[in-house]
């Protein structure tokens, strides 16, 4: 985007998922409950795109934002770093579109390093803030290799959603929202089978 459409950055505010989640947490727009993950240990996978590549291209990586978000879901003592981490962290093996390529043997062999890294942390949850990484770790590495204690692979936003304290909207707000919704469905010709909602 920066290369091709630099003007976009003047026209819009462009934010990453990290920026947005940090903003919600800092401003108090969302509230998180650390006790949701009490007794669990978590480790952090760093997807190449938002870390190494972003650091190379824009001189900015999201390491601190990432950790800030996780620290709001977990007690600090329950966060275990991988080795190596940060800009030297290992790729999960599904980067560059590998998940969708026919070289699954290579993709799996590539991921062995990652599986070992995860195992060594002893964590039972690994956070993967990227669709490819999450699929690779959850659907492939966890089956092919011994990842030790690790049982769960969660998207970063899945982790946040699980720790989220949701306060239902007021009746007033629900009513307003339903009216907007009905107008939209009418406009788009969306008809749902169940009538009771």
């Amino acid at each position, binding site marked *: 985007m920066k290369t091709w459409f630099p003007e976009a950055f003047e026209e819009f505010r462009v934010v990453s998922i990290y920026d947005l989640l940090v903003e919600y947490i800092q401003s108090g727009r969302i*509230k998180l409950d650390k006790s949701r993950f009490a007794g669990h240990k978590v480790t952090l996978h760093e997807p190449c795109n938002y870390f*190494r590549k972003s650091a190379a291209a824009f001189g900015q990586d999201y390491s601190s934002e990432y950790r800030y978000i996780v620290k709001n879901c977990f007690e600090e003592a329950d966060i275990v770093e991988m080795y190596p981490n940060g800009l030297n962290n290992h790729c999960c093996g599904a980067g560059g*579109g590998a998940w969708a390529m026919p*070289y699954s043997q290579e993709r799996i*062999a590539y991921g062995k390093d990652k599986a070992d890294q995860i195992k060594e942390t002893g964590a039972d949850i690994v956070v993967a803030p990227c669709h490819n990484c999450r699929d690779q770790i959850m659907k492939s590495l966890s089956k092919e290799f011994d990842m030790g204690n690790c049982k769960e692979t969660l998207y970063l936003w899945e982790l946040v959603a699980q720790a989220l304290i949701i306060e239902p909207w007021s009746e007033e707000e629900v009513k307003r929202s339903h009216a*907007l919704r009905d107008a939209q469905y009418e406009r*788009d010709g969306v008809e749902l089978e169940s009538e009771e909602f």
Partner: protein
Amino acid sequence: MQNETIRLSQETKSRLELTPEMASRCYTCATCSSGCPASGLVPGWDARKAIRAVSLGLDQEVVDSKWPWVCTLCGRCQYACPQGIQILKTFRGLRSLRERDQVPGPLHKGTMMNLERGNNLGIPRDDFLILLAELSVELMEDDEEKPCPGFYVPVDKENANVIVTINSKEPFSEPDDLKFWWQIFYAAKEDWTVSSTNWEGVNWGLFTGDDASMKEQVHRVLENARRLKAKTILYPE
């Protein structure tokens, strides 16, 4: 190409628009390949060899190999290279030199599908809208732990604060995963929207080395934001 003598002539030239930092400045130290998880996966190839081949003008050999595709473009090599070689740019360039119908797997097909129908998996607009509506009902009521009364997915809503894209994999095969963000938006009372067309958030052109398609994809994200007068674009992960 192992064990054969290779004769180079003046005509042996790389088809990549090479600049010194893309290959020729390499002094073959092998820092790249020694820290590369893909080393040893493709017989005859590793990062250093591929860079070396390019600087000797033998890039067709690398293009014909599966090396550029088994390499995940993770960038670990480039981060460590003492000569500052732009290894990713070079390897991605090698991917783009592959004939389009020889691009492995569904990546190129998906890229074309996206250009034609607005998402990599060709999900039709009406199916998409119905799915969002049905999932909304589930989230609103059925989620026993955390019901979100009043929730729906605002589609094509003008003047929203944030416009988002969607990874076509989710509506296609893991629709429940869409709800994580929805719960967050609900709790934050975000004023958000998604476009009913061209909502794809994954740019496979990036992976196939197809700059034109990649640019078109980014362009669409911007056009949606303009049409709907959104203030903020949430860039996909």
